[in-house]
């Protein structure tokens, strides 16, 4: 923090801004400054949620849709961790590996998840594999890059210290490099989590039976603003709460950074 604390309670500005946004929305929609066809009002939103709970929408009820999406996101995110982090460590530790992998990585990296869908369908069919692949692709890149940066930023003094105390390469890796890179790895994981959620919509374009992405796309095709907003709110809240959980995991995994 740069500025000195003021006497304003911590929660106040956030509450005020959220409240004023909601207030603005309620006013704008109830007095129809913005038509219901363009921005759903509170009532539309409530009805959409009701419909989503019972009888359901786009092939399933809210719990089904959420459960399906969360599973996909977690699977894609997990695969991104187990591939991106080790590869990032490898590239960070070995110039040779970096030079070898970089060209392919550079070309593939800017390709949008959406563009992978046809290939994903081809390689993994219409099952969850293709969806997980699309999510993985979005999450893999930040996981790898941040791990790489983290490894590269480990204080060489600490590596030297480990070596003069008799550390073998695997000691250096597991006792120095990995813990040293851990804070940045977690930064990467946060970004990867966000990427997983944002890739979800694209992933569920691959013939999903359930899922919030499917709800969103169906609602878009049905021109159903209330439902679109409902799905967006669900995705946003789920994403934010999973990030919160990740923060707890980070605190657990890096106890030395807690005060």
């Amino acid at each position, binding site marked *: 923090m740069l*500025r000195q604390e003021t006497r304003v309670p911590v929660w106040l500005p956030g509450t005020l*801004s959220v409240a004023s946004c909601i207030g603005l929305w309620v006013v704008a929609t109830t007095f129809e400054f913005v038509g219901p066809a363009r921005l759903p009002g509170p009532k539309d939103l409530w009805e959409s949620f009701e419909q989503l709970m019972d009888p359901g929408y786009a092939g399933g009820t809210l719990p089904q849709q959420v459960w399906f999406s969360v599973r996909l996101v977690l699977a894609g995110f997990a695969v991104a961790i187990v591939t991106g982090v080790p590869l990032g460590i490898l590239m960070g530790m070995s110039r040779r590996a970096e030079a070898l992998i970089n060209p*392919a990585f550079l070309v593939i990296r*800017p*390709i949008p998840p959406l563009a992978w869908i046809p290939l994903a369908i081809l390689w993994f069919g219409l099952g969850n594999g293709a969806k997980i692949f699309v999510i993985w692709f979005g999450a893999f890149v930040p996981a790898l*890059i941040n791990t790489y940066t983290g490894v590269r930023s480990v204080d060489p003094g600490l590596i030297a210290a480990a070596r003069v105390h008799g550390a073998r390469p695997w000691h250096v890796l597991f006792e120095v490099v990995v813990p040293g890179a851990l804070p940045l790895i977690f930064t990467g994981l946060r970004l990867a989590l966000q990427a997983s959620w944002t890739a979800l919509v694209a992933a569920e374009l691959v013939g999903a039976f359930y899922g919030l992405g499917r709800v969103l796309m169906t609602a878009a095709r049905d021109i159903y603003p209330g439902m679109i907003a409902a799905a967006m709110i669900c995705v946003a809240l789920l994403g934010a709460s999973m*990030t919160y959980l990740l923060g707890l995991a980070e605190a657990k995994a890096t106890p030395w950074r807690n005060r």
Partner: protein
Amino acid sequence: MALATQHPGLRWLPYSLAGAAIFLAVWSLLPQAGIVPSALLPSPMAVGKTFFELTQEPFAGYTIQQHLLSSFIRFASGFGLAAAIGVPLGLLMGWYRWLDRAVAPIFETIRFIAPIAWLPFAVLWFGTGIGGPILIIFSGAFPACLINAYRGARLTQGFLIEAAETLGAKPRHIITEVVMPSALPSIVAGLRIGAGVGWQSLIGAELIVVSSGVGYLMVQGQGNLATEKVMAGMVAIGCVGVLIDVALRAAERHFRRFEQA
């Protein structure tokens, strides 16, 4: 974002070349060995040839350069807006605690909404205007611009700020002459990530109004199962993405010349 920043030097060039060769070889072998039908994964040669043809002959109304140009204009507007709002807002949030607390709860939830998820509202709000694509690209690029400017501002060395204060600096001096230059590396990193994501959101943006753009080219190519056209589009997107990144890195080097020995 250091991967491409590194100058591995000539020493590592052979490895990079080998890496590129392996990549191309695997790509060519997959369709040739029949592991993947070439209708769905054309060889690099076929893609290259198609790419070249697309530069000569219009497809879906325009040549690929023209598609790229109209995509780029959309991208530049959306990304420009994201940078113009995100960077100053991020810096101010880093400086003013109350602003941070006011914006954070909204921002921290909204950023999980995928750029293409905004597509329905983009159409409802802006119709066929350029506003739609801008909204989508903006929503892709904005979080990175904001977060990095914010992080950079927050990591400004406290003693530099205090030094400025004791030299008579007002808040505006501190923000423009201390916090911003100090956050610059982080800001540029954010711009690079933001540009990447914004550019990736392009296809989504071009699902709205069909008339031009690489995204449109790809959608049309996909509709005809002309996979080599889709992949030529991907290559074009990839190349422009890399070029944007290179340009931003050059800008970064320019602004950080004070660090070079």
